[in-house]
């Protein structure tokens, strides 16, 4: 039971990393393709990156969740 | 209440008389300066009733509601009073919006408009601790600022070392001299005068620039157009 929870949490972490890496690769590709005006797209993708890390890695929801 | 109202009216009356009668500054020597002085006067006239209201309530309350010695009773339990709050908010918001529109935005737009078309350009270069003026149309430089009456001038200001600020008290206009940038201000001198007769006719540095900041001044002279042309001719010859 305990072990299963741990394993699913670790798996979630891996998926978050996959998403982050994928986003970074997309950013890089966008920068290669769009020679000008890519700033808004970068900001949007960065915000998605940040939300993923804040929510899944940093557990920001702890702040407003009631304490057990 | 009536006493406060009377006190307010009296204070406002006295204040407005003072505001209108006593001019707190010497006359400006540029059209833009007149605009700024009139904006200043409008703001003063608008401020007086506000100042008077708070003073009236403050003075009346202190005199009327003071209790000698230790208080033996509490005051009435008034937590808030909706009509008062609403009125207050409406009045303060109204005043703020009014001040933003006039003289703020109107003055700003007028100054902006004036900058669109100018009759001549003067370049001013600030350096520690002196002001060098260049007349690009005539191709010479000098260490005083000489301008003709009635011509609209764009002053292009820059600096060779640190930040200075170009200010001629008689014109009221001011703009910083920033290294690497050219900043501009527009003045239209409206009456003749010179530093010898009136210390307001000076370029004064107003941005702290080092040890000589307070003495970083240059004389300003406003002359009639014919005199200006003669001066230009003489300067061009001598250079």
């Amino acid at each position, binding site marked *: 039971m305990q072990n299963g929870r741990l394993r699913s949490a670790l798996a979630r972490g891996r998926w978050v990393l996959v998403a982050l890496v994928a986003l970074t690769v997309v950013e890089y590709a966008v920068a290669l393709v769009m020679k000008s005006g890519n700033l808004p797209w970068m900001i949007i993708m960065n915000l998605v990156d940040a939300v993923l890390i804040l929510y899944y890695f940093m557990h920001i929801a702890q702040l407003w969740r009631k304490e057990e | 209440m009536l006493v406060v109202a009377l006190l307010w009216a009296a204070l406002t009356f006295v204040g407005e008389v003072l505001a209108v009668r006593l001019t*707190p*500054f010497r006359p400006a020597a540029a059209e833009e300066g007149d605009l*700024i002085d009139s904006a200043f006067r409008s*703001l003063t006239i608008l401020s007086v009733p506000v*100042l008077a209201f*708070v*003073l009236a*309530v*403050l003075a009346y*309350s*202190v005199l009327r*509601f*003071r*209790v000698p010695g*230790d208080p*033996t*009773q*509490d*005051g*009435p*339990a*008034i*937590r*808030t*009073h909706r009509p*008062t*709050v609403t009125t*207050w*908010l409406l009045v*303060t918001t109204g005043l*703020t919006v009014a001040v*933003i529109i006039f*003289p*703020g*935005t109107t*003055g*700003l737009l007028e*100054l*902006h408009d004036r900058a669109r078309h100018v009759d001549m350009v003067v370049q001013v270069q600030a350096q520690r601790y002196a002001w060098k003026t260049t007349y690009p149309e005539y191709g010479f430089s000098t260490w005083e600022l000489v301008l003709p009456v009635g011509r609209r001038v764009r002053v292009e200001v820059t600096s060779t070392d*640190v*930040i200075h600020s170009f200010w001629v*008290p008689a014109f*009221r206009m*001011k703009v*910083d001299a*920033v*290294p*690497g*940038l050219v*900043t501009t201000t527009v003045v239209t001198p409206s009456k003749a005068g010179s530093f010898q007769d009136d*210390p307001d006719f000076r370029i*004064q540095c*107003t*941005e*702290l*620039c080092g*040890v000589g*900041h*307070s*003495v970083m001044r240059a004389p300003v002279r406003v002359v009639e157009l014919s005199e200006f042309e003669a001066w230009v001719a003489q300067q061009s010859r001598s250079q």
Partner: protein
Amino acid sequence: MAFAPLLRGIGFGAVGFLLGSGLGAIVRVTMGLDPWSAEALVVVGYIFGLVGWLLGVGVWGTWAREWFGLAARRGEAQGWRRYLRFSTDHKVIGVQYLVTFLVVMLLGGVLAVLMRAELMAPGKTIMTLNTYNNAMSLHGILMVAVAVAAIIGGLGNFLVPLLIGAEDVAFPRLNALSFWVIPPVAVLLLLTPLMGGFDSGWTAYPPLSVINAQGQTLYLLAFITFGFSSILGGLNFIATVIAMRAPGMTWSRLPIFVWSIFAASLISLTATQFVAFALLSVLLDRVAGTSFYDATQGGNALLYEHLFWFYSHPAVYIMILPAFGVALEVLAHFSRKPLFAYKWVVGAFMAVVGLSFLVWAHHLFTSGMSDFLHLPFMVTTELISIPTGIVFLSSLGTIWLGRLWLTTPMLFALGFLFNFLIGGITGIFLADVPTDLHLQDTYFVVAHFHYTIVGGEVFALLAGVYYWFPKLTGRMYSERLGKLHFWWVLLAYNVTFIPMFWAGLHGMNRRVADYSPELGGINLFISIAAFVLAASFLLMLVNLARAWVRGPAAGANPWKARTLEWQTSSPPPAENFPAEPQVVGAPYDYGVPGSRHAVVAAKGASEGEEKRDGDAAPRNQED
């Protein structure tokens, strides 16, 4: 023995400084640079020295040992010795702040007297142009530090936990840390003359601050360190107010002073980082060879102005919001009426916090920034007068129909209203772009901000000091001397600063050691008035020092006030309250029959026996 922590701090600090500067020299050698660069070595040495000082003065013993798995050492001294050590008691820290910044204020005042002496007559009077610029710059930063930290750090630390019924702040050790970085700041600033001083004013605009004497580097380090303290302080207050309130202390029952500290803390937590970076970028230009402000290399001095004012304008609300809090607190208790329009005031505080981040560029109207920025920043700046107006509404509504008890603190709170009114109204003239073009950087500005900060904040600070002095010390000052001090300060203050508006309009620009001869008369008048003003503070010192040593005992609640700090002994015990207070009502419900703010169980009688707040205050209804 009492000085052991201080001596250890100084010793560790010295070792750290030598270590750091040695390390700096080694790095320079390995990079192929001349090892000797006073500024670079001072910077690295200072960083290590600061860490050494903090570890020595108490961080190691009470805190850092835990990071290495060792047990922290505890133990508080008694009596005056507490004030010389790394105490985590918020009351000790509050007094440390207050005394430190009172001394700093007097130092800044001495500099002001010297400056006014120089300005008594045109030409050279007592000092050279360069000395004047250095004295003026030092005066500026010392007083800004006082304005930022005296109320929040001093009164805030002492009172916020008491007012919300807590035993201490959320992070007591962090609180002690935020105080103990202040002495190095003071030392750095006072050492600046040894390295040529700094003549750039407290604003330190580059490129001047990049190319002037090496004292500037000490100034930059000092300000950055002070900012660090301010950030930690703000963080602590926010967490404390959110998490440490006693049961029943809902947000709508918070005393207004707590709200004001909370609001100011939101600004100091966040905006301070901008000034930290602004100062750091100047420091890097000086010692690390970057070119943020070298126009020939693509630098731009306006960047600094934007970064600097993004903090430094909100900083004036860090100064003034707690002053509003103190003034309203005092007005309510001494009018013996509920605080008028409490919820509107809270809303106004929050509106000021929000707007404070949107107004910075009004300091740049003449800077040459883009024209299109003028209008929006004029609008946001003038909008601030609406929430400020609510503070006046609340003040006037509170004293109206009250039973005004004109004690010294009440007089200072009323004086605050008068002065701040003038400060606020003249602010409109500066927010208005057309008039600002003339007034910017003149004595009109000097007069305006002294009206808001000295006439406003310092009057509120004095109101607070007199009001809470019995709580801080357990003793009562002389009301007679207190009132004399008030009238003296009020008159001398206004006589000093009103003429400055006039001088500014007549071509007196600011930060000058010399001026046009025709301004001699008004300056002589201002100087004499300033000397009279300065002398008044000696009266306060005498009054408070004498009262602290042998004033009459004040008792727990000399003002018969309802809020929680008065429901415990004076000075309060280490744990603040004999038992955890239960908050059951609003803090200012004077005149409401049968109302109470909080219930504090008496010592040793947790059940049954209760002490009602403000019992001494009769609450008969007149009408």
